[in-house]
């Protein structure tokens, strides 16, 4: 009997093995672009690492990765170490970082559908994480990248996947966040919480939090000179510590620290 591994891609087992040591995976999600998913992902990872949690940070915005820029990492010159796979970069103590940007040298990657799925599976099947918590920055929307990530996490252990929803106070962002929360609930994942970015008041988010029974894990104010913070992880960490402390405390509780 010939068996074609169409529905049992050999990479899935490798991904399962590589992700199964995680205690928690946090897809940072929002259907709207520009709400600050990458910034929140970077800040959250930096604070977690600073608080002693071995944290991985994955840039899943595969067609246009930017996390390396936010963290001040030069993907043009770095060659990742190979040890039975590829070791993520360790830019700071306690933080591992992986991005397709290391393999495209920061160029745009015009791919769609199956190619996105193939790329994500290749990347995750060779990445040798040594972290307990994985923060995943995702592109806007709810398409290939996020569906594939949730599929892979579901096949590994659905209990470890706890999406973090990011919104702003804008009515368009809030409507989108509600749609996303409906969908995540129907997919059977428990939401970690919601963070309001560029936020002056949590009143508008409070309504969503109550309606969906989720926690507000941060109200991150607008950063005046944001361009000056980009690339300066220490400045970002200093800013993030107070504004994301609820999110970090909740994560520490989940992973038992």
């Amino acid at each position, binding site marked *: 009997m010939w*068996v074609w*591994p169409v529905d049992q891609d050999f990479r899935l087992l*490798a991904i399962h093995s590589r992700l199964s040591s995680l205690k928690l995976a946090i897809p940072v999600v929002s259907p709207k672009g520009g709400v600050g998913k990458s910034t929140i992902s970077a800040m959250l990872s930096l604070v977690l690492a600073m608080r002693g949690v071995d944290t991985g940070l994955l840039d899943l915005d595969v067609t246009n990765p930017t996390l390396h820029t936010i963290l001040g990492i030069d993907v043009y010159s770095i060659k990742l170490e190979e040890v*039975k796979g590829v070791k993520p970069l360790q830019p700071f103590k306690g933080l591992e970082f992986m991005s397709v940007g290391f393999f495209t040298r920061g160029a745009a990657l015009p*791919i769609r559908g199956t190619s996105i799925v193939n*790329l994500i599976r*290749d*990347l995750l099947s*060779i990445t040798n994480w040594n972290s307990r918590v994985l923060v995943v920055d995702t592109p806007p929307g709810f398409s290939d990248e996020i569906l594939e990530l949730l599929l892979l996490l579901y096949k590994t252990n659905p209990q470890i996947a706890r999406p973090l929803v990011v919104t702003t106070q804008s009515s368009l962002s809030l409507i989108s966040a509600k749609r996303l929360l409906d969908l995540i609930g129907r997919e059977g994942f428990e939401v970690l919480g919601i963070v309001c970015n560029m936020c002056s008041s949590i009143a508008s988010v409070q309504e969503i939090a109550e309606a969906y029974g989720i926690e507000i894990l941060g109200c991150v104010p607008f950063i005046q000179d944001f361009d000056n913070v980009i690339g300066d992880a220490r400045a970002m960490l200093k800013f993030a510590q107070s504004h994301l402390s609820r999110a970090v405390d909740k994560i520490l509780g989940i992973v038992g620290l």
Partner: protein
Amino acid sequence: MHEWALAEAIAKFIEYRALENRVNKLDYVEIVLGELQRIDEESFLYAFNELLSILKNEKNIEVLRYQLVREKAEFSCNRCGFVWSLDTSTISADELEMIHFIPEAVHSIVSCPRCGSHDFEITRGRSLSVRLNL
């Protein structure tokens, strides 16, 4: 090494399919090496043979025969329909290394020779695939 990681993934797959089908001998395994990924055959075979030994000695799962098959890479342009093959002479060593790890990186490097579009499909010879004869 990256080849080790790929060989390890295939060995896990063989083990999984053997256990799933309740067999401990697999008649034949065919491993297709897509040209685009440029797997180092010597490194891959070294790792794969090591892993097959472990599979046999520790799990009592044996592959009776296997074969590596090379597949040429082929691309098809979504814009103009042109079909073409890989030409490594136009790609730098650094770029080939990037494609080796993530074959989709070719989309940021190669474009359609006829219309110049980067919107194309990799129709053959992308990376590794496995066929099992249980």
